[in-house]
């Protein structure tokens, strides 16, 4: 269990919902951008690269330099954006990264969030979120759960 004194909420102070999370992710993005050596082991281990057309036949250093640019909130190259957009959290990169303290699966996740504009940057990839997500979840609940289950479990 985490020590409350060490959480981002306490480090940053919580003024608005989500602010502490945004601060945490911004800090992690910069930390991971600093750690990555662009060795490319993660790219070579990735099962989704074959579904990232612009990342085919591009050298690993170019792709990873773009990922690091995304983490810093900068504009990334097309190959990097293609690969980041295809990341589906397979975690095959997890065991191949030689850098201590760097989880490449989490690095890719945060890079994808930044590419979608999660930290206020201009989006660089298409955002495919369901704008009706919550209403849809509730609509299905009304079909599959009894009234009392909806009252107690939602």
């Amino acid at each position, binding site marked *: 269990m985490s020590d409350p004194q060490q959480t981002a909420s306490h480090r940053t102070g919580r003024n608005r919902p989500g602010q502490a999370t945004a601060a945490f992710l911004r800090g992690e993005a910069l930390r991971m951008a600093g750690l990555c050596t662009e060795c490319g082991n993660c790219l070579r281990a990735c099962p989704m690269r074959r579904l990232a057309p612009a990342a085919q036949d591009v050298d690993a250093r170019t792709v990873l330099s773009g990922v690091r640019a995304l983490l810093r909130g900068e504009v990334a190259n097309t190959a990097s954006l293609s690969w980041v*957009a295809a990341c589906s959290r397979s975690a095959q990169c997890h065991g191949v990264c030689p850098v201590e303290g760097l989880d490449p699966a989490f690095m890719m996740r945060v890079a994808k969030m930044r590419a979608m504009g999660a930290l206020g940057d201009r989006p660089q990839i298409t955002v495919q979120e369901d704008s009706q997500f919550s209403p849809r979840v509730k609509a299905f609940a009304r079909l599959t759960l009894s009234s009392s289950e909806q009252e107690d479990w939602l």
Partner: protein
Amino acid sequence: MSADRTTDQDRAVFWYGCNMTRHGELIRNSARLLEAVGVAAEPAGGPAYCCGSAKESSAQIAGGMGERTVEAFNATGTPQVITWCPSCHMNTQDIMAPVTAPEFTTQHLSEVLHARRGRLAPMLRQRIGLRVLVHKHQGFNARVPVNDIVPELLRMIPGLEVLEHDLRIPGHMCSALVGVPGAILATQSDQLAAITESGADAVVTIFHSCHREMASLERGRTLKVFNWVHLLAQAIGWDAADDYKTWRNASDPRAEIGQARIEAAGEVAFERLTEPELRRPATI
């Protein structure tokens, strides 16, 4: 079990996530399974308990959801939260816990049932004569070894033969592949080939989004699609009717559901929010 022997490990919140509301019977039967192995777990989920992963294009919105959910669980005083959804589970570890300190431990449903499988086994008395292949993803297995745990649980069911195949689908579950052009088609083709190669009668999903994507594989095939909780419930003799799969594969989902049920759920919401998904063509 007497009250004085009840421990913190015997009470929990069962956090079923958001999109599981398509599968009420999975929520209901998961809670019953937990109760049957001695864990009193009240289900909680839906938008009020969102991990935020559905809104990752805004760290502020996703973060607000995740922070609120941890605070809500902390307020219950529960010593443990039992997860269903791999996104929720990983989000808790990666983002939510570092930001808002949880006052509970987190375990996946499969881990809890597996740890208490000695209590589960004697209840699995109904024979299920099927040869099944489990639909396995790569991503979440690094956190929780579901690709081993779930087959081990299923092998306790009399008559059920759980087959092996090397196929591991990319992603942590199928919803992660939906936004990648060509990914679902490619992985479902791979899965069908693996089913044929192994000689399975049925494929068993582990997660809800995989079940949602794969339910339509039954169309025009003798293949059956189950979730692992359906099979455990069925082996105990509980109602495990899979309404979502029935509706998804019906030529007219509206007729299958029935007008009274649709009116009770709200005609406009049904028409706008659920019917288009149920009428979506099969991927393959």
